[in-house]
């Protein structure tokens, strides 16, 4: 059997890294992205700086996109979606749809890198009034403001004097149905809090949390600087609700650290929304028949020793398609998926 290219689905950090990896070791790859640009959620949601290294997100994504666009081994298809699949490992036939029509491509293996979407804080409960109050934002909204270097209250255009982050919105919540930790929001909130304090030194910044999950060096790189250098106030206790009083938002909750109820006025509230499987991830799972886990991300079946295998031979998943992941995780799992995809393409061709 001839060695067929690997089909990589999703042009975000994980998909671009998988494609680059496949090409780097001398194999061909078709990279499919439904939007008209590469860069994935960091590009779509206007990320300002990457966590934890504060690297300019736009620049980093452009660099990754250029690497695959400039590589002859990578056939980049933007504005293209996957419609259907037949065949098996070593010889999949995948039908693609784009503005120019339908086409079937042959692929020896598939890497699903369709990522996540941000939790919609207005979807399940309205307790934080995301759609009700102008000055209630999400991490994503703030990221956009940080990119423009202009953090203001949408209600009046003034810079906030007091603002807070509320952690675990849409994560670790049995009421909502997302019982998992989204892993990155603690780090992202800490990173954004530093950026806000750099932009607005007179603005008091609070972070209300259940526990800060800043594993590894993130603790040293972002958590401690935010607390010790930038004097961000970490308060253990999740806000119960937000109410409007005059032109302020009143955040109510328990300050468990001090053992007292609290009711504090804020100019701006940022909801640290978590991750959910993207609609693309769910669609690809359906098309390729790969199992989802109970959190509705793609189930990886190899346990601790293989983080990219799925329930279908020859179909791999990486990045946030398999669960909440930061960029570091996504890049690492993308490389693993690239290697395993190439490996199966070779094995099937040799056996064939």
């Amino acid at each position: 059997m001839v060695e067929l290219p690997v089909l990589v689905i999703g042009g975000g950090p994980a998909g671009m890294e998988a494609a680059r990896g496949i090409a780097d070791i001398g194999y061909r790859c078709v990279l499919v992205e439904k939007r008209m640009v590469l860069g994935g959620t960091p590009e779509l949601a206007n990320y300002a700086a990457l966590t934890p290294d504060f690297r300019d997100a736009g620049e980093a994504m452009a660099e990754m996109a250029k690497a695959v666009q400039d590589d002859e081994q990578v056939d980049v298809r933007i504005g293209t979606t996957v419609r259907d699949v037949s065949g098996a490992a070593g010889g999949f036939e995948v039908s693609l749809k784009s503005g120019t029509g339908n086409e079937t491509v042959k692929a020896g293996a598939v890497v699903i890198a369709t990522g996540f979407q941000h939790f919609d804080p207005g979807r399940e409960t309205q307790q934080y009034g995301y759609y009700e109050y102008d000055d209630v934002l999400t991490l994503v909204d703030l990221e956009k403001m940080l990119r423009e270097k202009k953090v203001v209250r949408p209600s009046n255009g003034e810079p906030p004097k007091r603002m807070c982050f509320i952690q675990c919105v849409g994560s670790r919540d049995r009421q909502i149905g997302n019982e998992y930790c989204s892993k990155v929001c603690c780090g992202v909130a800490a990173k954004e809090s530093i950026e806000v304090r750099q932009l607005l030194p007179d603005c008091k910044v609070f972070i209300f949390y259940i526990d800060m999950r800043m594993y590894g060096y993130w603790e040293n790189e972002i958590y401690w600087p935010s607390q010790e250098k930038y004097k961000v106030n970490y308060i253990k206790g999740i806000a119960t609700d937000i109410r409007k009083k005059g032109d302020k938002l009143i955040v109510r909750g328990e300050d468990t650290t001090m053992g007292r109820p609290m009711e504090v006025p804020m100019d701006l509230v940022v909801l640290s929304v978590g991750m959910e499987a993207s609609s693309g991830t769910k669609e690809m799972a359906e098309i390729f028949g790969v199992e989802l886990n109970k959190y509705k991300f793609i189930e990886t079946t190899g346990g601790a020793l293989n983080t990219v295998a799925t329930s279908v031979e020859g179909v791999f998943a990486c990045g946030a398609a398999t669960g909440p992941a930061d960029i570091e995780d996504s890049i690492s799992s993308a490389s693993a998926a690239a290697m395993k995809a190439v490996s199966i393409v070779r094995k099937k061709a040799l056996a064939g």
Partner: protein
Amino acid sequence: MTLDLSGKQYAGVDYDEKERLFEEVKKDFRFEQYLYGCYECGICVAACPSARFYDFSPRKIAQSVAREDVDLFYVFLNDSVWDCSQCFSCDVCPRKNSPGGLITLMREVAVNNGLASAQEALEGYGRVVYKIMATGTQVAPDMLQANAFPDWGPHVKDIAENLEAWRRALPPETMHTTEASWQVDEKTITELYLIWHMTGVMDMIKEVDEGLFMILQDVMEEKLEDAGYDVSFD
């Protein structure tokens, strides 16, 4: 007694005044070695003897300052820092904070600014402070009086009544004293008085206990004059 952290009891105190005291603590040169950040791990409270007996938490004090919560800081400055025994068991902190050291700074600010709470907390120590500062020794034999130490038993009365005889029974001649623990050299006393004058201890006493200050002033100025120093404590 339960510590009221609501701050309502000090709602009448100007925020600017609270902030001024807070800034005074922060600008102390020791501050940055005493407080970094806080894990909220509670190891300081676990190690703290006072926390077993009082509604006292070195963690909360450190956190109120780390958070720059000026209102809460003011509550602790008045109602909590005097519950600390300054044993520094809290120095076990994994973040290398010293809540005890921070409390030292807060106490100094409370005293230097003559806070009523500091005056009240130190009221009972006037006699001890007088002894140390006037004689150079802390616990003098003549402080041993039956009515002051009823729990020490009936023999205290006998010792107190015959104090001079008991003291003369001690072999070292320098301990044949009743007003001081031992006889302190004149030169040492002079140096102590000068140190207390020059380092601002007398100013601190003046803020917290005017009566005690005046008594000490009489004693010290006279002795320093005899020793050839022209010093005024005013």
